[in-house]
């Protein structure tokens, strides 16, 4: 589908598989472990944090596609309308991927982008649920939960982001990210 020359093709396939596998693991960890922690104020959204980090490192295309695939998987595992988290996660992956270049200039950009992704994603989930199904949260609750998710994202990103960047570098075999 996305025809780029030669060996880059296998590299790209590997990136997609790795991103989707990582996010699928996060999916299970989210509902079985993180959701049981009972964090104050809201919840840490591990999947959105990982998705944002992956999009920042690999760009909007990987972000959008892996977000979509994992979103569909999450929808299948849940009881709400099929496709609603796919919609939100695909948009988040794409939007965060757009600031990929800026992420290399400053440390604040990944932090801000991840937090923003979690806030927007949580609000997006609440909005899509109230549009396609029955509202699970009132507006105020949704905002509080979104802000809590953002704060937890800021706390988690400094640990996750370097790990993922290193992983991406290993995967591609490049000495420095990007090679530009």
């Amino acid at each position: 589908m996305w025809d780029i020359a030669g060996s880059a093709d296998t590299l790209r396939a590997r990136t997609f598989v790795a991103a989707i596998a990582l996010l699928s693991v996060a999916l299970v960890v989210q509902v079985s472990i993180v959701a049981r922690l009972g964090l104050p104020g809201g919840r840490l959204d591990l999947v959105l944090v990982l998705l944002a980090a992956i999009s920042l490192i690999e760009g909007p295309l990987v972000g959008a596609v892996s977000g979509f695939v994992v979103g569909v998987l999450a929808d299948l595992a849940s009881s709400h309308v099929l496709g609603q988290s796919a919609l939100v996660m695909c948009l988040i992956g794409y939007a965060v991927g757009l600031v990929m270049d800026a992420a290399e200039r400053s440390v604040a950009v990944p932090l801000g982008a991840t937090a923003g992704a979690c806030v927007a994603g949580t609000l997006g989930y609440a909005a899509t649920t109230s549009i396609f199904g029955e509202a699970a949260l009132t507006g105020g609750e949704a905002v509080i939960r979104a802000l809590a998710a953002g704060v937890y994202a800021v706390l988690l990103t400094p640990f996750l982001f370097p790990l993922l960047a290193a992983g991406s570098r290993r995967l591609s075999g490049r000495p420095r990210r990007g090679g530009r």
Partner: protein
Amino acid sequence: MGRDTRRSRLVIVALLIAAFTLITLDYKTGRSASGARGVVHSVLGGVEAGVTAVTRPIGRTASSLGHPNRYHDRADRLAQENAGLRRQLADNAAVGRMSKQLGELRLIADKGQYSIVPARVIAVGDVSGTDWTVTINAGRDDGVDVDKTVLDADGLVGTVSSATAHTAAVRLACDPGSRVGARLERTQLLGAVAGGQGPSTLTFTLYDASYRVQKGDRLVTFGSMDYVAGVPIGVITKVTDVGGLSRTAEVKPFVSVGTLDLVGVVVGRPAADPGDRLLAPQPVPTTQPAPAAPAAQPPAAGTTTPGTIVPGTTVPDASTAGTTTPGTTTAGPIRSGQGGTG
């Protein structure tokens, strides 16, 4: 790699169209645990059960590790031994906690003469956090089926919304789509309890406007096709509407969603309505002497002792039925078809 090129824009447009197509199709056809959804449910359920089984002991031993020491050999051996002993202690504590939970669950099932299948919560909600469901590790093979009532030692949890062979999803009572027929304690007045106000608030609507609902009144399920009767729901915290044809009030559920662990699925309903006897005995007012109440308080919380039973209970044998009915709790996949048609 992929910048905001024309290709990536094409891809996102295609994905958005796909997402909306999925939403449209699924919105029209309704949702059930069959087909692809059923496969994902059962696969993920298995993985979740595994993850939960693995992480529980890790969480327990995490605290017993990580004490650095310089005398390597001896210290290592001692540390290992120590960690082993701590793990054993923690295991014992976990077993004790588990058996206490099971005991409480069994007690409430005996009081109501329900046949239950015990199960553990293995996942809470879904990834987006907008689903008020939990996943439990019992399924069709254990006799769990759609629309069965789920309770824990404190009261009503919800109903089974979908079931696979070994797991089931439980729709919590606080889900916006959930409506439960409820009865006020000590009366036969009927109302409905609905969710949608977040995890710790339910809305109670009493259909009889002539009755004065009061703060502190407690609710049990009324019982219908889906619900067994007499399961405690919660206590009224605030009366919000006193005019009109019905009265509404806010209800604080007895069950806290955050701490759900061991639950029971009611697979067999009692022959007779258990009335109010599942409610914990209310603190007796000091002006009224309570005979024999303080003398022998059993260790298990919530036990109905003679003398502390609420006056005016509809069932006369409420004080004895609690502990003398044997064999109504099933510990495994048995007695699935015992009258509970759902």
